[in-house]
Every structure is written in C-alpha cells, then in structure tokens.
C-alpha cells in the first residue's frame, strides 16, 4: 500500500469494519476520492485489523467521534506532503450529540418539528453502552453497530 501525499489514514480499525467506517464517513466511492482499503492484516495490538487511506480529505472531529462508536481502537493520521503531521486516537466524548437516533419512539428527540438534538451520555466504553439523556433508553454496542452500519 503506497504512501499518500495528502489526506487521512485510519489505522487499527477492528477487522472487518473498514467498509462500515467508510459508510459512516459517507464515502461511497462516487466522490472521486482515491481510497485504499486493507482488511484483515496482521496487527501486533489487535491480532487482525483493517486500514483505510483517504486521499485529499482531512477528517473533522465530529466524524472522528462517529468512528469511535464502531472502531474505538482506531487511530487517525493526518498526512500532509507525505508526512504524518497529526496522529490521534479516536476518543469517545462523554456525550454523543446528533449522531445516533434514540430507538424509543416516544422519546422527545423523536417528536417531529422540535429543535432538539438527540444526545447520549457514555455509560461505559468497554463494553460500549450509551444512555439517552432525555428518555433514559440504553443503547448497547450491538444497537449502535446496527444503527450505524445496518443489520
């Protein structure tokens, strides 16, 4: 896998989730971005891992947070002129805002025409469990994966 000049390398993605990471980032391939996906390669830390390289795109913080929900081990490398200028681990914020939908149909965040953003507090990172700030509904890692990746 060759080095990229400008862009983002997402490393240490749990094996098999690279395509889901791309989906969450909204990258379908039709944008014309040059994207490299490596799956199930050996990793000292994880045993096996996936890697995604995206040329000419630097990830915004809210996108990084989204990835943390399904790839908590991921590292983000920002590459400029072939050099890694910034390397950060994805870090779940204590509150997840406006990314996930509350599954409870009578949660106030599901009420049409209210200027309200769904908000979840992180109950635990491992295993990942979130709780809706408004209605108390608890989301498990499986619920989150299902919502962000689909069944």
């Amino acid at each position, binding site marked *: 896998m060759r080095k990229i000049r400008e862009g983002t390398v997402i490393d240490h993605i749990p094996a098999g989730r690279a395509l889901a990471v791309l989906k969450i980032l909204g990258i379908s391939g039709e944008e014309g971005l040059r994207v490299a996906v490596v799956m199930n390669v050996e990793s000292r830390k994880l045993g096996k891992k996936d890697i995604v390289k995206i040329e000419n795109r630097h990830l915004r913080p809210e996108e990084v947070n989204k990835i943390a929900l399904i790839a908590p081990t991921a590292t983000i490398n920002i590459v400029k002129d072939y050099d890694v200028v910034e390397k950060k681990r994805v870090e779940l914020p204590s509150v997840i805002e406006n990314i996930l939908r509350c599954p409870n149909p009578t*949660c106030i965040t599901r009420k049409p025409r209210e200027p309200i953003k769904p908000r979840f507090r992180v109950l635990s990172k491992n295993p990942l469990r979130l709780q809706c700030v*408004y*209605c108390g509904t608890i989301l498990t890692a499986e619920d989150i994966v299902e919502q962000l990746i689909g069944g």
Partner: protein
Amino acid sequence: MSETKPDSISWLSRDVVSILDFSRSELEYLFDAATWMKRRLREGSVPRLLGGKVIALAFFEPSTRTRLSFETAAKRLGAETIGFTGEEAISVAKGENLADTIRMLDGYADAIVIRHRYEGAALYAAEVAEHPVINAGDGKQHHPTQAMLDLFTVKELFGAIDGLVYGVLGDLRYGRAASSFILALTLFKPRRVYLVSPPLLRARDEVLEKLREAGISYEETESLEEVLGELDVLYVTRIQRERFPDPSEYEKVKGSYRVTRRLLEERAKPELKVMHPLPRVDEISFDVDDTRYAAYFLQARNGVPVRMALLALIFGAWR
C-alpha cells in the same frame, strides 16, 4: 461544593425533572417543609408565601390528582395558576411545537408544571425555559413529585424510609410512578426491594441499573403471594394501558394481579401498608379500602402539602 450548601439554597429555582436530581438530604429537607405545611393546613393557618406568583400548569396529558393537587398547593400559598389540560384546546392542535408553547408559558408565569406523553419532555422544557420547570410526568419515564409524596407518606407511616422491605407491584415497565418510586428508594437504604410483575412488565434496564449501582438488595419475581409476608410497604400500580405499543400485549397482562382483603389477611404482616399512586382500575379491590393496610388515600392527600413544600422551596419562600 454543592454538598456544603444549605438545602434551602440548593432548592432555590431548581428544575424538578427526575427524583435522582436530588440528594437524600434535600429530600429530607423537603419532608420537613411538607410536615410544616401539613400542620399549617390542619390549623387553617397557611401563610401566603407565594403571593403575586403565577404558576403555569401545562398538562398535555390528562390528570386528576396531580393537576388538582398542584393547583391546590399553589392557591393555598397565595399563588395564581394558569394552564390547560389536553392538547385540543390549545395551539398544539393548530400544530404548535412544544418548544414554542413552553417559551410562551415561560413569558407568562414564574414556574411551569408540565405533563407530557413523550419521555424527556420535561428536561427539554427545562432547557428551553428560564423559569423553573417541574415534571408532573413525562411518558413512562419520571414522576418525581409523586415519588416525593410517596416517600413522605412512608416516612409519616413508619417514621423512617430506611430499613423497610418494599414490594413494588404491577406495571414496572410503563408506569412512571413505579419507576420513580424505585429510583427514589436508591437514595435511601431499604432492607430489600421486591419487584413483582408479569415478565412483560418488568422494570426497565436503566431502572434496574440504578438499583445495582446503589447496592440495593432487590429481587424480581412474578409472585406476590411468595413475598407478601415479608413486606412492610406494598406499592401497587395500574397497568398503563395507554402506553402499550401493542394492544394485544395489554390483553395478555390485564388483570394479572389483584390485591384483595382476603389475600392481605392471609399473608401480610399486620403492619403492612398498601400504597397506590391512583387511579386504580381493579388491582386493589374495594374491600381493602377500610382495612388498616390501606394507605393510598392518605398518600393522595399528601400530594398537597408535599407540592406546597416543593413550590415554597423552589421560590425560596420557606426555610
């Protein structure tokens, strides 16, 4: 630093969204105020502590006791009330959203009491409004002022909330009074809590989690008969037909338990007290009403002094 604040200050201008927003000592302070209010009510000497205040009663869902006891509490203390019950009569019927309705009430009144069928509506209203918002029931989630008057009633009956064995019976899944009562117990030291319900109506995960976090000894069971003899307090709730997503599920569980005089006389300790947030359907038979077990009418009456105390503390009018 909030622990060092005197409780009279910590109550000032507070939103009341969940019973878990409060500490044990704050609740005990509320109970002191409620005891004082109750005595003044009995003596007919309630001072107009809230003269000149306007309290909005925004009941988007039907209510009898909660609305009338808030209204009575406010009026006994000299406050005026404005408000509505049901959505048909107000602009919501024309398509107004909750945020706009709350902003309007916030402009008219000094505090807003809200009941709404959506979980989280009271927290949302509290975020929108500048004045204090009091949750009078948000969907199946919270009913903190009910829990306050429930615990006050237990304290009045037994002299303490700690050390008792509680049974919470009925709809623990959709019943907000039951959930709030269970959550309220996590602030105290009950000896044991039995959660008695059909499997479909078990307490929600987030409620059970709080019991575990608080280190409360609890057990879920389907059989009231098995645990009745151990109980000091039996808290009975109605099956919340209106909150069942699927009516056929309601049909499966309706009438699945019933507390009768005969059952109590056969199995209960003589000092057991039966509580119920009311209204009841058929879960407590009428022949229990005139027994020594029945505490639910006392409980309902306590709604007024406890809500008087709550309003007075929020407005900084009692210390």
